[in-house]
């Protein structure tokens, strides 16, 4: 406690000591999500007569978790500055189609195609950011427009055809496992680690969160909020590029519908993961765990042949619940802080 202020602080600041810090950890949404993940996974394993734990099923579980994780992070990054990116799904599809088309129709080497997909995602993300800053139009509208444009461009790459038979090497990596864990899942985890490091430790990442948390205070501290917006959108685009590479490597064929089913999950993961829509706070761990939980719902559906509509209903209710809990927390904190 401060030497200047009495320990019995009338404004009600809780005493912060090591023990209290541990107490806080058990109350974090990350901890709740981890519990739900572990318990849910165990229940699902038992319910499937341990079919879930057999090599093939378990591999598939994690293989199809890679893209939702990265796409959730792509959304989380822009949520961090209080923005949204509606173009994540369409951009994933566009980048994936472009990379596949370059390999199939123009015999571009896989390494170059992957580089182009990453660059394309980053470039479109930067355009989103610059448009938001220059026009002062809300990112929701800007990315709604770019989403529609990208859907058109994506169709333009190969019409309604399917692109397949590209680089066997890339597909092999996409299907490979390391000690039984799919490589593309490991890539997604590594990306998550980098994103976490970026937000925790780099000046750029901290500035971005400062802009999201209190733009006025950030400006008074010499942080450029415009710069933060552009960086957030650019980074989001780069992560979308990564997701598109994972899609191309993992699936073996791509068509013009790729990415259509990614927009809602991109929001579901960070929102269930406890990321505030108002900006200023992100949670990589929460986003990854939430993606895991959503994946479990998917697997449950497949395993028990449940009508697809029930899954959407469950995910929808969970998202609504997560947002409500966030709002309740906010109100409680405000009440405690007093008028």
């Amino acid at each position: 406690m401060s030497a200047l202020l009495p320990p019995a602080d009338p404004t009600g600041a809780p005493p912060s000591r090591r023990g209290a810090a541990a107490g806080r950890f058990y109350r974090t949404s990350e901890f709740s999500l981890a519990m739900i993940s572990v318990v849910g996974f165990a229940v699902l394993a038992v319910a499937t007569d341990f079919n879930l734990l057999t090599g093939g099923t378990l591999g598939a579980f994690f293989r199809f978790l890679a893209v939702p994780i990265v796409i959730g992070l792509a959304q989380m990054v822009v949520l961090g500055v209080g923005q949204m990116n509606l173009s994540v799904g369409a951009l994933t599809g566009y980048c994936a189609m472009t990379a596949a088309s370059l390999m199939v129709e123009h015999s571009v080497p896989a390494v170059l195609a992957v580089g182009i997909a990453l660059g394309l995602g980053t470039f479109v993300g930067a355009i989103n950011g610059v448009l938001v800053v220059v026009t002062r139009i809300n990112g929701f509208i800007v990315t709604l427009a770019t989403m529609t444009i990208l859907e058109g461009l994506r169709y333009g790459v190969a019409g309604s055809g399917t692109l397949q038979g590209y680089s066997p090497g890339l597909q092999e990596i996409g299907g490979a496992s390391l000690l039984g864990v799919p490589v593309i899942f490991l890539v997604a985890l590594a990306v998550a680690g980098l994103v976490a490091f970026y937000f925790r430790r780099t000046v750029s990442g901290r500035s971005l969160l400062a802009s999201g948390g209190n733009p006025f205070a950030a400006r008074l501290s010499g942080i450029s909020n415009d710069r933060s917006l552009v960086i957030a959108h650019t980074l989001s685009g780069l992560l979308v590029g990564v997701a598109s590479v994972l899609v191309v490597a993992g699936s073996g064929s791509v068509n013009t519908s790729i990415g259509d089913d990614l927009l809602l999950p991109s929001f579901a993961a960070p929102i269930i993961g406890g990321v505030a829509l108002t900006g200023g706070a992100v949670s990589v761990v929460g986003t990854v765990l939430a993606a895991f939980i959503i994946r479990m719902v998917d697997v449950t559906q497949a395993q028990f042949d449940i009508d697809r509509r029930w899954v959407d209903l469950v995910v929808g209710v969970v998202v609504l619940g997560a947002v409500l809990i966030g709002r309740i927390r906010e109100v409680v904190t405000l009440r405690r802080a007093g008028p």
Partner: protein
Amino acid sequence: MRDLLVAEKLVKTFPGVRALDEATLRMRAGSVHALLGENGAGKSTLIKILTGVEKPDSGRLLLDGAEITVSSPHAAGKIGIGVVHQERNVIPAFSVGENIVLQAMPSRGGIVDRRRVRAEARRCMELLDLDLDPDRPVATLSVAQTQLVEIAKALYLDTKVLLLDEPTASITGDEAERLFTVVRRLVADGRGVLFVSHKLEEVFALCDTVTVLRDGASVLEAVPLADHDRSQIVDLMVGRAQATLTLPERTVEPGTPALELDGVATASGHRDVSLAVRPGEILGLYGLVGAGRTELARALLGLDRITAGTVRVNGTPARIRSVREALTRYRIGYVTENRKDEGVFGDQPVTRNIGVTIWRRLARLGFVPDRRERAVVDTYVDRLGIRLASPGQLAGQLSGGNQQKVSLAKWLAAECAILVIDEPTVGIDVRTKAAFHQLIAELAAGGMAILLITSDLPELVMLADRVVVLRDFAVQGELGNDHDYDRTSQAVIRLIHDDHAGVS
């Protein structure tokens, strides 16, 4: 002692207002300098110029004898001018340490050097004898602790001049005492502190010299505070009134008050507020910014919850749960102080702006015939002398004064019997202002009960029959008004600055 920071003959004009009129501020190293002035005297503008938020039209700034230009808030910090604003400005999710060093995070190759963040934060906090864990999230701190963290932040970049804007507005008396100890320690090290406060008792307890602003000019420049007593300072802050208008004669009927509050407490924090307005009467509600005047108006409109006490309308207890109920059942209208955001629909025609309160009355089977709306609107456009190209003109295109008239007209159209008018003439030119005063007096003469919230002392003294002074969400006192400017204004100011006033 040498001059540390000098602001010389600063002039700053905003559209229609001369906010600073050759104001001069002269601060010395190693002393605490008070900046005083009533609402609208130019204090905020002066602070904004010193901290690089606004640029002066003319005049110059000197720091340690060298002329400086402060191009941005960040630039101010870099050359040694630190500021702690009235509102808390922290990044809630960040740690104490990160908030302190936010202006220039210690880093290596773009990666935050957390050891140095902690060390630098500890160094800054030591200057204040503040011992907080640098890793602690700032969201877990009390208001007073957060404020000290902000002072530590202001000291991070080798600050020579520290500006404290109303630092005691949201902390308790004990906490304020500790803050003063910190301030004295900072000036003992040769810094200069500019202390802006409305609380005269604090100013006299802490400050060495004082500058008083009035109407944008410095009427007292950098004199030792010991040479003056409180009433001299108050006289200087208040000044003289301008020529008065001839207002219509009014008689206030002695009977039942149109609106009466009895021991009212609200969710926004009011305690035991009692007041009464009779038909034909103008009750002035005075207080400093943040005293709870607008919040009281909001409670009367059902926007904030009333938690205790009784509100009576025409003698009958009233439960006001929504603006619609306030209007239709109790005939209470509210002209907002925030014209742009709450008063008019800028991108809608004037007709819709005025008609909005009476659509229900005008409607036939759910439709509002344009003709009926126009007829009513025309009446009030004429009566208030609203200058329009056509009634279809967008409200946002009108001048400030005419927008304010539109904002008022909709309540007249709704035939309110009780009108709460909040800062009616802020940002309005002098001529329109006079017309507005005339209008308010006429409305009262016509039998309306008016609760006038204003920070403009001449306006208050001219219009109000009685004055209720609010401070910290409670009634500080009530007094009659004989429209003698010097007498009433000084009585009001004394009431505000007196810590031990009872209700007279």
